[in-house]
């Protein structure tokens, strides 16, 4: 292989990278149930392996000399510009199907293909019994395609394609067991709520295009920085709208409500889409558009605050959940809140790093939870679990690993990433001490709900009486272990990521003020505080004795606050009353179409005239004659009135 060949080959590999799963998807859909489990599984996993290998290869080609690899597939469409419509003076802007690989997308594709591959392996085992197995794997593959396109897109329209594509796959997978009404509604909700964010994103693109005449990310960033100064109004609005898209996809306030419901989908889906990859697309978007966001410090500030608010809200909500998956869902929201906070604080690479480690351990948590749920005959309620430590030691161990990372105990991958975030908050321009406190408080909440979860599920007395059916599939175990390892050692990637992202994100030129000396110690200590607090506060959950005495006390608390928290601080019902109800009511009210009715009123009116006129056709000769006279008289009046008026003048 000569030196000339290598770039070309890299480009080709990059070009094909996202499409292996597409091939698998098409095959799976076309052949459907005719494929055996083995074939279907190997097909989908093979596609994933190919993608993963390709991404390994292309990433390995990235270096300081070659910070960016692009691959042009074809021109999607061309936007002609009216002359002088924008400041850049070109006549047309091409929107290409181009893939663009830099440090950031490298991180993303490695997460997507790597974690995706592991989850695929898990899913192959996990969903083995489902009769629609091949359809499931097809959707999963399709999702990977969309996600890869999203992260590799060199322009915002292509990104939007991936963005919508992952939304659709999310919808399909949440509603995979379509016969349950809850799933169907959850799928619909997920799609529609994220669609609201997508619309904001789309509007953002419109404005962007009008102002810059560009939709290619690199050009946008360059032009924006050339044309606008920080605090520019246009940048403010554009980034605000992009943020709208991001909060929708990443389940941040105020569009966070869909995520907990989305847990209705099969667990691998929750792991892949609603923890590891899709929900982080919002983070990716902001990170990707950092050049633009930096021009709008106010929006950066909003990002931080939104992140913090979500972080706290989700943490509080997680405290009250009874469904293991919902706890994890809220935890996901809260962790993404961290990432947002980090982005908002300008600590882009820390955010992205947390994105990666979170992908590892949250996938691990979800998958393990899935394994547990299956073992418990699809029992998801924490209050029905308990004492699994002994009955499912393997799963418990893995889960514990995940939780450790989640709580960011020192040494775990979560520790590195989360600490990196927290460390940068205090002195950030767009964040500040207040947010630092939020983050710390969030960490505290995290450790508390993690402990609560752990105690309820794994300690105390077993409240699940039937026999367990732990899966013995090797595939399943393999993927879990792999993820656990990644979660544990994820911290070692910190430097690599820091390096690879250095090109993408602007260098932090801020003069690091002397942070208070206690910052670090407090941050590190926080999870332990939480653990200790929970150890005592949730003592009843872990002690066997008390549980034995009153088995039935472990039901979800029905106190007002608990319910309020359990419902995610009642955002759902708030939106229900604010938006859904009025819309439905309006639709219901106007089902008959008021315009139609107004128009048909004419028809009714003519019908009425018909009836009136018809009653004049009495058949009586004398009336007919009289009518002639009457009409003549009236017409005479009309004439003479006119005559008089003309004569007077």
């Amino acid at each position, binding site marked *: 292989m000569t030196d000339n060949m290598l770039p070309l080959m890299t480009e080709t590999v990059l070009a094909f990278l996202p499409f292996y799963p597409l091939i698998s998807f098409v095959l799976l859909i076309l052949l459907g149930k005719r494929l055996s489990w083995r074939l279907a599984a190997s097909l989908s996993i093979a596609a994933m392996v190919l993608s993963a290998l390709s991404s390994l290869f292309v990433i390995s080609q990235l270096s300081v000399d070659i910070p960016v690899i692009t691959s042009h597939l074809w021109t999607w469409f061309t936007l002609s510009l009216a002359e002088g419509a924008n400041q850049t003076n070109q006549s047309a802007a091409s929107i290409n199907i181009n893939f663009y690989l830099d440090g950031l997308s490298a991180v993303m594709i490695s997460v997507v293909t790597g974690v995706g591959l592991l989850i695929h392996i898990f899913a192959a085992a996990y969903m083995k019994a489902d009769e629609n197995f091949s359809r499931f794997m097809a959707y999963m593959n399709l999702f990977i395609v969309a996600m890869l396109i999203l992260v590799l897109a060199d322009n915002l329209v292509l990104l939007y394609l991936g963005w919508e594509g992952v939304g659709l796959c999310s919808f399909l997978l949440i509603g995979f067991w379509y016969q349950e009404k809850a799933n169907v509604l959850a799928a619909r909700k997920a799609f529609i709520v994220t669609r609201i964010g997508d619309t904001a994103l789309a509007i953002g693109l419109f404005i962007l295009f009008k102002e810059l005449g560009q939709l290619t990310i690199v050009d946008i960033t360059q032009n924006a920085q050339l044309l606008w100064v920080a605090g520019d109004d246009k940048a403010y609005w554009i980034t605000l709208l992009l943020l709208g898209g991001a909060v929708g996809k990443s389940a941040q306030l105020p569009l966070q409500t869909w995520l907990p419901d989305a847990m209705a989908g099969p667990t691998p889906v929750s792991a892949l889409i609603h923890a590891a990859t899709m929900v982080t697309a919002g983070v990716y978007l902001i990170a990707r558009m950092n050049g633009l966001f930096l021009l709008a410090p106010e929006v950066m500030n909003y990002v931080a605050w939104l992140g913090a608010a979500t972080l706290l809200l989700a943490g509080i909500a997680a405290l009250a959940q009874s469904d293991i998956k919902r706890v994890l869902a809220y935890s996901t929201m809260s962790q993404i809140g961290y990432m947002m906070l980090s982005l908002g604080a300008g600590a882009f690479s820390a955010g992205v790093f947390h994105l990666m480690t979170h992908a590892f351990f949250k996938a691990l948590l979800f998958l393990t939870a899935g394994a547990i749920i299956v073992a418990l005959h699809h029992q998801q309620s924490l209050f029905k679990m308990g004492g699994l430590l002994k009955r499912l030691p393997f799963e418990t161990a893995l889960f514990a690993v995940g939780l450790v990372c989640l709580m960011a105990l020192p040494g775990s991958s979560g520790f590195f990433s989360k600490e990196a975030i927290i460390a940068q908050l205090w002195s950030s321009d767009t964040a500040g001490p207040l947010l630092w406190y939020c983050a710390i408080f969030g960490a505290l909440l995290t450790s508390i709900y993690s402990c609560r979860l752990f105690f309820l599920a794994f300690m105390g007395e077993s409240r699940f009486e039937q026999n367990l059916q732990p899966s013995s599939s090797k595939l399943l175990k393999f993927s879990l272990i792999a993820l656990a390892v990644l979660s544990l050692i994820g911290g070692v990637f910190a430097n690599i990521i820091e390096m690879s992202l250095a090109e993408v994100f602007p260098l932090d030129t801020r003069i690091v003020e002397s942070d208070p000396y206690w910052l670090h110690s407090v941050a590190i200590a926080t999870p332990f505080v939480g653990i200790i607090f929970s150890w005592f506060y949730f003592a009843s959950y872990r002690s066997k004795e008390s549980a034995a005495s009153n088995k039935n006390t472990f039901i979800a608390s029905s106190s007002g606050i608990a319910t309020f928290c359990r419902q995610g601080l009642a955002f759902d019902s708030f939106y229900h009353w604010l938006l859904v109800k009025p819309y439905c009511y309006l639709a219901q009210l106007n089902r008959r179409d008021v315009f139609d009715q107004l128009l048909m009123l004419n028809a009714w009116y*003519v*019908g009425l*005239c*018909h009836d009136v*006129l*018809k009653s*004049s*056709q009495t*058949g009586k*000769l004398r*009336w*007919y*004659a009289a*009518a*002639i006279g009457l*009409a*003549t008289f009236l*017409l*005479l009046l*009309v*004439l*003479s009135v*006119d*005559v008089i008026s*003309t004569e007077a003048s």
Partner: protein
Amino acid sequence: MTQLMLQCLLPILIIAFGIVLSLLLIAWRRSQTLILIFTLTIFSVALLASFSLFVNLASDIQVTTLVKVDSYGLFAFMLVLIASIAVSLLSSTWLIHTTEVHDEFFILLQLVVLGAGILVISDHYAALFLGFELLSISLVGLVGYSRDSEFSVETSFKYLVLSACASSFMLLGIAFIYSYSGTLSFTDEPEILTNISNSDSSVGNVFFYRVGFLLFMVGIAFKLSLAPFHLWTPDVYQGAPTPVTLLLATVSKIAMFIVLMKFWFSQAIFVETKSSDENILFLMSIFAIASMLIGNTLALKQQNIKRLLAYSSIAHMGYLLIVLMVISPHSVELAWQSALFYLTAYVLATIAIFMTLQLTQYNHHNTELDVNDWQGMFWQNRSLALLIIVAILSLAGIPLTMGFIGKFYLLNVAVKAQQWWLISVLIIGSGIGLVYYLRIIFVLFSTAIKANNVNEKNNPKELLPLPLTLTPAMNFSVVIIIILSVLLGIFPDLLANFLVKPY
């Protein structure tokens, strides 16, 4: 009385002579076939005569002060003759089945045609009056012709009394106009302009003219069944025998409309001031608007076909009045052309529908034919159903048919005269009209049994009262009418060029 003048009157003379001969024929032998053939011959000869006259006519020819023969009048007379031939053919199928004496029917028919003939060439109030009364009185006889019908007396009485009333109004109107102008001729230079030295101060008061005009219009409007003088129309249409209804709908309307146009476009010179001009135009637009709206609205839910057609004819006369809105002298030709084209389309369509009506009615053995009685005809008797469809589409003014071109002409006139109000009403009226026109067409296609009784599908007899077979002659005429309507709808110039005066 030159020879040329006699030649010009030839078609009328043929008819008049024919009447005398028919009377003699009856005296000689009472035979329905014979009198039918004779009547048809008379009409055909008159048609030929008027055609050759039409072709050879070099200019308008004034025959005494009473009549003026022009190409428009001749064309209208040809239309009248065609309609009358249709009426005689249709009545023959009807008369066979009645116990009446038939021969006088044809005499009356010829008298009607004679009246119409005089009307279309009249240029003088006296001629107008003569033609008018000849037409009316004979029609009274025809309307109640089937004495065994329960409605005959009522129909004739209504027609007689109301028509007499209307003629009285018209005559009074003529008297008023005469007192204003001092001449009974349409075209003569009025005395008022030449002989100003009249001692009577009240002579020449324009108010007389207006009142007179209004009263005159009452008579005309009655005959054209323009709203608000339309009340008699549906009753008489329904009560009269179908061929006579056809006569009412075509011959009497053509003749009256032509005479109205002649009167109108010659009387326009009477109008002195702009304001009075608008005054009378305003009156005419009231007639037009009221007719379009009332006619269409009344037809809306009507089930009885004859009544429905009566109402629709009211609307059509309303549309037609638009041609009178022409003010500028150089548009007069367009107005005539439009009116004649529209009338032709209207006459063809009306003949077509009444023809079908007569055929199916006879098949039904009842006089009260509902729209629903035509149900599913398209699947039973395609040519007849196509005839109705083409006729209805023509009446509704849908392209591919003559009616559309007619409407196109009218709109041309209206746009030229900038009568936006009339155009709006025409559009609204057409919209309402579509409801009942389409309903008829849909009935032809409908296969559902009347009571929506789906279970009785295997009993087609109930559904189909009309597997009627047409005689070859009938079939031929059906096809001819269809082809004519569509052909002239696609290539209107075949007729339009004909209408343009050759000189």
